[in-house]
């Protein structure tokens, strides 16, 4: 009788522990397993300073590519990332959101700075010369195509991949957030990453 009791305790405990172990390895975003080696780059911040990714160690870097004339996708993502920071509370101090322009022709540093700070004063916007920007896009597999035939000449829109790239505290690209992830999912993934 007593032995049977213990057997049930073991079964129930295992049953409870299994999903916890499983959950600890689960992200809502797309995890890169194993993560690629740290990919460093240097670009110009909107305030004129140099931004080097490797200097952000100790922070989770949330990287997004877009442009300030973006009518729908980019502002939706940036507004969501601002809410993610709010949801993270004090932990948000260790989260750096970085917005890299896909449109250096029109996105002047001044314009970029005003743009991202309107979403969150802690956001950093980056630009650079066309070659450097293309190198960074290639590192992350970002695609961007100008749409000149949008019927709005001489202006244009840019079709682009809309992932957000999550780089952990030691500079490794760990997660890709697709456009449709919820604020809760994104902040839970980031806190999980910060716990290590």
């Amino acid at each position: 009788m007593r032995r049977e009791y213990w057997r049930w305790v073991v079964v129930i405990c295992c049953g409870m522990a299994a999903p916890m172990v499983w959950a600890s390895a689960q992200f809502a975003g797309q995890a890169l397993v194993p993560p690629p080696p740290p990919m460093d780059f240097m670009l110009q911040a909107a305030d004129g300073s140099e931004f080097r990714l490797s200097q952000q160690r100790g922070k989770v870097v949330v990287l997004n590519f877009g442009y300030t004339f973006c009518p729908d996708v980019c502002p939706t993502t940036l507004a969501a990332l601002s809410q993610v920071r709010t949801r993270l509370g004090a932990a948000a101090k260790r989260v750096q959101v970085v917005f890299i322009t896909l449109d250096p022709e029109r996105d002047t540093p001044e314009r970029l700075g005003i743009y991202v700070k309107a979403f969150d004063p802690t956001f950093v916007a980056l630009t650079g010369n066309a070659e450097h920007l293309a190198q960074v896009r290639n590192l992350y597999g970002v695609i961007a195509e100008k749409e000149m035939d949008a019927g709005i000449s001489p202006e244009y829109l840019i079709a682009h991949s809309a992932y957000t790239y999550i780089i952990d505290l030691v500079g490794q690209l760990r997660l890709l957030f697709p456009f449709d992830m919820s604020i809760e999912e994104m902040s839970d993934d980031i806190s999980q990453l910060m716990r290590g």
Partner: protein
Amino acid sequence: MRYGRVAGVLLVICLSGIVDTVAADSMGHGQSSIQLENAWARRTPPMAHQEQGGHGGSALNSNNSAVYITVRNHGSEPDVLLSAATDAATTIRLDETVEKDGLMVMQPRPQFDVPAGGSLAMKPGSYHIMLLGLKRALNPGDVVHVTLIFQKAGEMFVDAPVK
């Protein structure tokens, strides 16, 4: 006495008008089965509109945004949103954000279908009314006046608050 009754009727008409404008004004064909809900326009960051001193707006000082509206069709027949107009932007376009080969693309749509007894929910990353070349900055508290032309319901007006 008679004037009192007329005034009363007018008052009722005025009040019903106010109630109507909360959702939308219909200038269409009598009783419309189309209802416009949850309209909003996305605020724009404080770009150089003001700094320009108000003369027009070159591409560099302009901006783009979008309006989102839920269109509900209480009728038994489908309706079609054919076009939209606003004084807030130089170009307005019915659009859908779609993913195509890993790219998020703004796909112009000639019309938005609103099924009978159903709705069309515009939202970020999906159907929206794109505003290109804004004539002014959109700040929270502002409203964007939008005119929608439906195939059956005709012309409808909605004030989309900026959020």
